[in-house]
């Protein structure tokens, strides 16, 4: 997995499976502190402490179709390879908070890639979940909230291809305006 946007798409599947109704994704770019971090917070079922202990083990999974689970181990490995850190905290019944920190200048920091595509796939597939995406750069902040979008759409389905295209444009234009580092 060579893009942070793919890791985000992957990790959020865990939140979806945990029946979250609110998923927040926070990206923080801070070249002055040499940090590029992603944080995913959900209000899902949470993870039992016993399971959490072995969460970064590739042989830990809730899957029934296969015996390995590589989503978290791959993200952790990428973060650590890029001089960063990985942390996951969870409380059963309340939700989970995961944070992966990368050194901004590190050659092994994966690029963000097509985050707009990640968000639109999630939004179109999981219409009952509220997604909030925040991206901050030294220049400014961008916040995208599907609740606000749905309010503006007044019942027009958010998964219509034209709306998806428009949302992709909305996210990309705004990230461009705050000079987000995506590549």
């Amino acid at each position, binding site marked *: 997995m060579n893009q942070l946007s793919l890791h985000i798409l*992957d990790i959020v599947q865990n939140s979806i499976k945990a029946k979250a109704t609110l998923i927040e994704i926070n990206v923080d770019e801070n070249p002055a502190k040499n940090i590029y971090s992603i944080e995913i917070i959900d209000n899902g079922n949470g993870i039992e402490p016993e399971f959490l202990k072995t969460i970064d083990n590739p042989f830990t999974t809730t899957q029934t179709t296969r015996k390995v689970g590589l989503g978290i181990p791959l993200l952790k490995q990428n973060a650590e390879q890029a001089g960063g850190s990985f942390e996951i905290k969870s409380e059963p019944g309340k939700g989970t908070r995961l944070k992966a920190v990368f050194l901004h200048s590190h050659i092994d920091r994966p690029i963000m890639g097509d985050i707009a595509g990640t968000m639109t796939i999630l939004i179109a597939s999981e219409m009952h979940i509220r997604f909030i995406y925040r991206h901050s750069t030294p220049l400014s902040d961008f916040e995208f909230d599907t609740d606000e979008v749905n309010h503006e759409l007044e019942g027009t389905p958010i998964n219509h*291809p034209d709306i998806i295209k428009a949302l992709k444009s909305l996210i990309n234009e705004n990230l461009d305006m705050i000079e987000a580092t995506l590549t």
Partner: protein
Amino acid sequence: MKVKSLADLKKIKSDVQQKIKLREQGANAENIVQIKVAMATCGIASGAKEIMNFIIEELDFRGLDGIVTQTGCMGYCYAEPTIEVVLPGKEPVVYGFVTRDKVMEIIDKHVMKGELVDGIIPVSYKTIDE
């Protein structure tokens, strides 16, 4: 058109609503194809995200109504990206090793004409330890 704000989004909303009205008159809402793209770690690492976006674009380009969503790992990690195609009233069909070319073939033949194409993972397939 470039969409920069929620106000811009609001402008295209009425066009979309108009389109939906037109399509609803022409087609039965239950009569549309459903395509699920396996979007677990194995799928994503093999390019499922690009494939899903491509399917949405291609259906739209051909003016076909369809529901494209993501699903979990179906256990065919070796054959990712995998997609499940469900035509109205028909059994689900799972395709493996889906590329952009395969998507075009599946839409042209399977979705539009109901003909099965190469690359189907048989329902009888079981993993070794089952």
